[in-house]
């Protein structure tokens, strides 16, 4: 009786574990119940990133450089004792995050990058950047495998919010596109979360 009971318990436990495993396998990681989904996490990260980026671009760089003309913004801001460009500010944050153990990464890419290292490289980036350009106001979500790890990858439009965005990109000697206008999608913020 005891043996039978033990066997029954073992069978039940095994079935439960198998059931849970199968159930986890059939659900997409982005849909696992009871926790925040990668998409929600990514959207939240992006909300913070885009808010900081907009404030810095509009209230710091555009105001001081374009409106009040009290300081310059420069790629070589340390040497020139100037303000870092908004894209640099964004990248420095991304690099600091990368130095830690945040378990997510983000970058600023474009179909028309000034620095060629920031052009779309993976298939997800290529498709995503084209998608957000073709579908204004929409984000792009996909899963991809890079270096043996699976990632939830989100691509968000990066829009020209102030005159400095447009003039700086249009005038840069390495820009492949010189007819940006305010409101245009200039590139995309790519967030990756390992799953």
């Amino acid at each position, binding site marked *: 009786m005891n043996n039978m009971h033990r066997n029954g318990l073992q069978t039940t436990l095994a079935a439960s574990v198998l059931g849970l495993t199968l159930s986890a396998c059939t659900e997409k990681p982005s849909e696992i119940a009871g926790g925040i989904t990668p998409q929600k996490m990514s959207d939240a990260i992006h909300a913070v990133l885009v808010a900081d980026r907009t404030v810095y671009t509009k209230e710091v760089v555009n105001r001081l450089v374009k409106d009040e003309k009290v300081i310059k913004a420069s790629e070589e801001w340390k040497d020139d004792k100037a303000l870092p460009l908004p894209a640099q500010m964004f990248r420095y944050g*991304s690099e600091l995050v990368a*130095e830690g153990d945040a378990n997510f990464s983000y970058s600023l890419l474009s179909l028309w990058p000034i620095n060629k290292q920031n052009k779309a490289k993976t298939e997800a980036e290529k498709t995503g950047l084209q998608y957000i350009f073709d579908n204004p106001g929409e984000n792009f979500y996909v899963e991809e495998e890079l*270096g043996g790890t699976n990632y939830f990858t989100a691509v968000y439009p990066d829009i020209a919010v102030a005159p400095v965005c447009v003039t700086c990109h249009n005038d840069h000697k390495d820009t492949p596109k010189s007819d940006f206008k305010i409101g245009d999608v200039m590139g995309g913020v*790519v967030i990756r979360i390992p799953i």
Partner: protein
Amino acid sequence: MKINTKKTVWWFVWIVLSLMLSGYYGNALLSTDISTDKSVYLSGKTTDGHYQIELKCDSCHTEAFAGKELLQKACLNCHKDELKKVEDSHPKSKFTDPRNADILEILDARYCVTCHIEHRSEKTRLMGVTMPEDYCFLCHQDVGKNRPSHKELGFETCDDAGCHNYHDNKALYEDFLVKHMDDKSMLEIMALPQRNLKEHFVRQDEKYSQTLSADNIDMPPEISANKAIVHEWEKSTHAKSGVNCSACHVSKGEWIFKPTISVCKSCHEPESKSFFASKHGMRLGVELPAMKVSDARIDLKNPDKKILTCNTCHTDHSYNTEKAAIDACLGCHQDEHSKAFRKSKHFAAYQAAKYNKAENNTGLTCASCHMPRLEHRELGEKRILVDHNQSNTLRPNEKMVRAVCLNCHGLKFSLEALADSKLIKNNFNGSSRFENEGFAMAKKREELKRLGLIKDDDD
């Protein structure tokens, strides 16, 4: 039972020998006594940069069977500040981005040891690099697409003097070349930054504004003062800055006859830090006995057992920085560059300044270039301090350009001079044999930009 005596003896000998060998190797491995010889565990000749601390194995191998991460931590323990200061062009954060996972499969640039493998002297090149000369090809093989001027250049020439460096491109990036394109060889104002250490201490405490003399010494009466020593001190910057005998010789109320290096460090912290990172002081930096002149791998004059501490160059009591900046160096270094110094234009400038024919901060010593005066910011205060790590401007030598050369010379002139080994040997007596083509390339791109002709694939 019959005992085989012969066999028993051999067993006994074998056990004794095994125990002796185990004791010897075990002691060498586990001993924390710095005098224990651990050289039996060196797996190959150590690089010039690390050989002084090679017997302090745990400087790098912080734990037994440590993986790459711990080894990397050890590298950064000594080199992190340096990489940050030079705004490393290839920081780890660039390679941890998942989008660069394909690059990591070719070159795992997250770890220093990928390019700087220790104990592999047979393939170690300058700067401790163990990669082949053309390693840039691994990631930048399509450079000619965006820079057609580079199409015909061999990848083994990327890091030629004055072109590119893997870590430090602060004097080499394109906009910097453009900005300094028209600099004259000799600038109109040629001067080194003026040191301002005394002002710093006076701000801390008004007592450092005093000038002391022999009448003011605060040596205890039971200790008889050596007149010669008092006289040396009286002429020193210490006496002229209110630093009395007790400042160095008294610790916890006790008179110390031979103050240790920690006493120097207590007032000169940033200078000590750079000294401990240098080839002169790195052994002290990891708590090994100070380096002896005879330990040097380069050919030195009088390679005796003299040890290198602060007082070796800054002779105690007089602390004559002029002597420390030339005589101390030439007391040991006898390579062609050093021997040519007293015939150089730089030395002539030093003499002109010394004999009041020129401004004070226009004289050039060995230290002016190899231990430059650099801006140091701390808590909002700007100080000019001497960097005592001579490797900071020699690893590689273009690092000297911004820290030193541009105080007096134009960028092109400086880069071209430093690219010419013959000119370096004769201590810059003559003109460089090389022209830095980077300036012409940068100028051409500026011109194309002005004409609006730069496209994605254009130079």
